[in-house]
């Protein structure tokens, strides 16, 4: 059976949800094996086996984190050369794109980024992408394997398919070229305690209409009442009302939560590119002509400064 090399990411003792999605998709093409950096905890090995991974290639290399994505790309390239998999699956993220790009050049492989679906047709990998800010859907066949694919998070519901996984440790030596870019300082960000924006089932986002940093507290209160992550338009992050990592859109995150609430966001094409795959969209905007209403399942023409707090109160009341 053909092998699909899946790059998995962990966060402490758990496997990140997008990685479980990759394993779920990989099973459509063959037998997934997982590649992970660091030494996996037992719970990680168990979760990967639970989702169908039959081999687990662990690359410990402690010094790797010092050198951006190149050592990881080199490790994946070496493994792909040795194993000749049908495909290499990676999550779409800045690092994922770097790795995919390097691997594709090294192997002269067909590469597809931001795929949302995949199938096998006559033995070839065929992927679906949402392109041009979500305006078109493209299906593309990979004609030179291994197919190198990056997938958007939330493309599929992760599902288990228990197997038993054997663990293999892979040595890595960091090349001279990879040593050319070195991380010299890291300043951790304070955790908000809210769900991760890319994994969150519910997202409440604010834009220019929120008006001020203080106004953003109304967005956060509603998010907390819904157990949601907080998002923002670029305008809101540019002026510093919300941190950059909460930006949604073409140059921010692409998300597809079950519920997206947009408050004081006009719905520019670059913003819609990041959120229009949300299952349910709610918009609060005082301008009835705001483009966001064109894609909203429920829209309120009104002032977010009164609607948001009233909604937060109503939700809290109904839940107690």
């Amino acid at each position: 059976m053909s092998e699909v090399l899946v790059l998995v990411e962990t966060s402490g003792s758990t496997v990140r949800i997008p990685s479980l999605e990759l394993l779920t998709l990989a099973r459509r093409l063959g037998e997934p094996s997982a590649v992970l950096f660091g030494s996996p905890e037992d719970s990680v090995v168990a979760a990967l086996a639970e989702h169908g991974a039959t081999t687990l290639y662990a690359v410990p290399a402690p010094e790797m984190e010092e050198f951006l994505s190149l050592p990881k790309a080199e490790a994946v390239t070496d493994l792909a050369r040795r194993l000749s998999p049908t495909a290499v699956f990676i999550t779409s993220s800045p690092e994922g794109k770097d790795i995919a790009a390097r691997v594709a050049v090294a192997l002269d492989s067909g590469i597809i980024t931001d795929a949302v679906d995949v199938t096998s047709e006559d033995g070839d990998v065929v992927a679906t992408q949402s392109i041009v800010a979500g305006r078109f859907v493209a299906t593309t066949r990979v004609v030179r394997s291994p197919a190198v694919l990056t997938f958007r998070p939330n493309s599929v519901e992760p599902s288990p398919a228990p197997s038993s996984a054997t663990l293999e440790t892979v040595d890595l030596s960091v090349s001279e070229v990879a040593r050319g870019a070195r991380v010299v300082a890291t300043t951790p960000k304070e955790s908000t305690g809210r769900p991760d924006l890319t994994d969150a089932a519910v997202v409440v986002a604010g834009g220019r209409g929120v008006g001020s940093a203080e106004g953003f507290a109304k967005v956060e209160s509603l998010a907390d009442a819904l157990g949601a992550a907080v998002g923002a338009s670029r305008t809101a992050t540019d002026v510093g009302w919300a941190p950059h990592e909460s930006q949604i859109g073409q140059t921010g995150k692409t998300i597809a939560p079950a519920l997206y609430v947009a408050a004081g966001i006009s719905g520019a094409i670059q913003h819609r590119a990041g959120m229009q795959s949300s299952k349910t969209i709610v918009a609060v905007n005082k301008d009835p002509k705001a483009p966001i209403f064109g894609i909203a399942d429920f829209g309120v023409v009104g002032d977010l400064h009164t609607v948001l707090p009233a909604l937060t109160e109503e939700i809290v009341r109904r839940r107690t």
Partner: protein
Amino acid sequence: MKVVVLAKYVPEPTATWAFEADHTLARESVEGRLSELDEYAVEQAVRLKEAGAADEVVVLTVGPAKAVDALRKALAMGADRAVHVSDEAIAGSDALGTSRVLAAAADKEGFDLVLTGMASTDAEMSVMPSMVAARLGLPQATFAGALSVEGGTATISRDLDTATTEVTVTLPAVISLTDQTDEARYPAFKAIMMAKKKPVETRSLADLGIAAGDVGLEAAGTSVLSIAPAPQRQAGTIITDEGDAATQLADFLAARGFLR
């Protein structure tokens, strides 16, 4: 120090897009421009020159005849020279093919630093910087939110989900810049006029020593089967707040199972 900026000619984001029968974008008929995300790279390159860190800024594009408009814009922003790689055989190239051409053209030009945007606003792949770096055998640093250069080393910062990091990069290298770097300038009328006199060199595949069969639609590692308009989302219920919007909204959320 010589800086080469990779800048792409892309359709206006608001334009109506059309595709040819072979599923490639109809680049000649759709109104185009210098990718807004590449303006940030041009801006940073010009600032390096203004600060005395760079001696020359060359802007490089691979694209159709009209791509020269993008080069003129970059020249008006302050780039010194432009290189336009244009060849019928390049049409339909995938990222592998385009990176082959860009790397060869940058190599022929010579550079200490290659700057790029974070993504092209049409293909939106964010792979070209890494691909070009891979082909040139160079280190890379992608998604830089700030850049400075001193004595053969570039220092960048990256704004990540859980941390901000500072990275030093030994030159020569390829660095991609995000829209978090400072705003790009609007060229003044005088600069636009002066840009018309700046040199734009055109290069063919033969000039770069690339065989026609190594790029283009036929050499691509992927083949597009279909491109269709995405299903349109239907607009739902829109109400005007008359004091009870919160109640109606809560009812809607409850009906969809979000208040359990």
